[in-house]
């Protein structure tokens, strides 16, 4: 079966994000970028399913500037077979992401779409759900396990109080949570091999999709800082402070 995975290019999670001085956005010039960690887990899952003989082909899609090719190459170094970049300089919000992916999926006809549960930049947690709604397919978000049974999939999802079991029909869209797997490190030979894998570049217009942002960002700012705390000498003093000063116990 064919699987489609998605890979968003984001600011590296270990980089301290800085707000631009004019409050219009965050500083991205000369900032280290990487594949969104949840997308990485999605790619890893597809590769493992291919290694297990369940999946025959993995197509990876990224949406954004030309630099997203690097993100696609990373996914291909992990084991994806070919890439599609939907190139645009616009800020692509989740609804537009879902529309672009739907147009590609109508053509590619994968049996399963694996995405990250959320991107760690805008933290929306929407694209997978929106895509499955537009396709009229079932969804399983925040998954920590997936087993394919013919035309169905047995899913374990992370929910607030524990785990949930779900049985879904294929084709479907699933989104990866942290514990689905631990992504592999890419090796140099595989990076070299990835450079030879096919990478198609298309524009949203060619897909007939309008990606103009619907939400207007009026300003961005840093959150208000907490007032400075105090170091206490020992636990005895700590408990006294909590009782008499903070009055929380």
């Amino acid at each position: 079966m064919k699987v489609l995975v998605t890979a968003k290019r984001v600011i590296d999670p270990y980089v301290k994000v800085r707000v631009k001085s004019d409050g219009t956005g965050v500083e991205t010039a000369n900032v280290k970028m990487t594949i969104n960690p949840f997308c990485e887990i999605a790619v890893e899952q597809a590769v493992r399913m291919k290694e297990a003989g369940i999946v025959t082909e993995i197509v990876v899609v990224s949406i954004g500037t030309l630099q997203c090719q690097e993100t696609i190459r990373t996914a291909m170094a992990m084991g994806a077979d070919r890439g599609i970049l939907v190139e645009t300089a616009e800020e692509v919000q989740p609804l537009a992401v879902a529309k672009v992916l739907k147009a590609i999926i109508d053509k590619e006809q994968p049996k399963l779409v694996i995405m990250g549960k959320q991107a760690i930049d805008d933290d929306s947690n929407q694209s997978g759900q929106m895509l499955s709604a537009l396709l009229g397919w079932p969804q399983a978000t925040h998954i920590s396990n997936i087993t394919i049974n013919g035309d169905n999939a047995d899913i374990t999802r992370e929910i607030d109080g524990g785990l949930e079991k779900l049985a879904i029909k294929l084709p479907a869209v699933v989104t990866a949570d942290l514990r689905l797997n631990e992504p592999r490190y890419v090796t140099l030979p595989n990076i070299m091999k990835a450079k030879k894998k096919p990478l198609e570049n298309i524009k949203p217009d060619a897909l007939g999709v309008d990606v103009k942002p619907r939400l207007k960002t009026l300003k961005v700012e840093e959150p208000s800082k907490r007032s400075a705390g105090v170091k206490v000498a020992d636990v005895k003093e700590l408990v006294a402070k909590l009782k008499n000063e903070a009055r929380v116990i």
Partner: protein
Amino acid sequence: MAVLVIAEHDGKQLKPGTTNTITAAGKLGGDVTVLVAGHQCAEAGNAVAKVAGVAKVLVADAPHYEGAVAENMAALVLGIAKNYSHVVAPATGFGKNFMPRVAAMLDVQQISDISGVVSADTFVRPTYAGNVMATVQSGDAIKIITVRATAFDPAGDGGSAPVETLAPAADAGLSKFVGQELTKSARPELTAARIIVSGGRGMGSADNFKILDPLADKLGAAVGASRAAVDSGFVPNDYQVGQTGKIVAPELYIAVGISGAIQHLAGMKDSKVIVAINKDAEAPIFSVASYWVVDDLFKAVPEMVKELG
């Protein structure tokens, strides 16, 4: 126009977060209607009717709403969404799951996880793990919104809203709820707890993690963990506090052996009082702590239990 809130509940009671979402909905202008969808959930419907600020309760009761399966929840909400200016749900696992489906079907760009209401079309939401606050304006005809519960006070009692029955939508038949394995605990839920004791990588092992239990018991606290502790397999994932786990804001948050990665701070930095116990005097967690002790946690935690009597 009226505002529609989708309630999260267990059939009998409201889950924490729903009453906070009702407060947020009250700031949008218009009467607040609350939809309770589930299987055998009449009791939850009656509970919502007593919440202050609720004008009307709709109850949709059918077997295919058990487990709040996304496809069926979305179809139900979609059927009535056009009667409202805003559709609002808590940004918990529940709301995150089906709300974007509703938005996509309405061709609306959802606004996720709002922490502030500026006006009926402008909202503040945290991005980049809470390190950047964005003010965004929506031009869509219906606003589909999920709410960061900890950013709003819970609505109190005192309401007496009429309860009406809403006819269920058809079962989409796309996915089937098989069951849940909930972590059993006598302690309060993380998102509802007044006090939380959390452990990090410094706990060292699953066995060591248990030394937090007597402290939590003494304080009537919930037990949480950092992502590092979850990744190391000390505790299950639903303990996780942070950007990729639960967002909490209790009155007292005690971080034990937690260094304070950005992703953890994002989940707890709005707590009223933060205590950090760490042997590393340079731990970043101290930058958000109200009080901190530099000490070996295996000595400090039992001492604290003793000190609390």
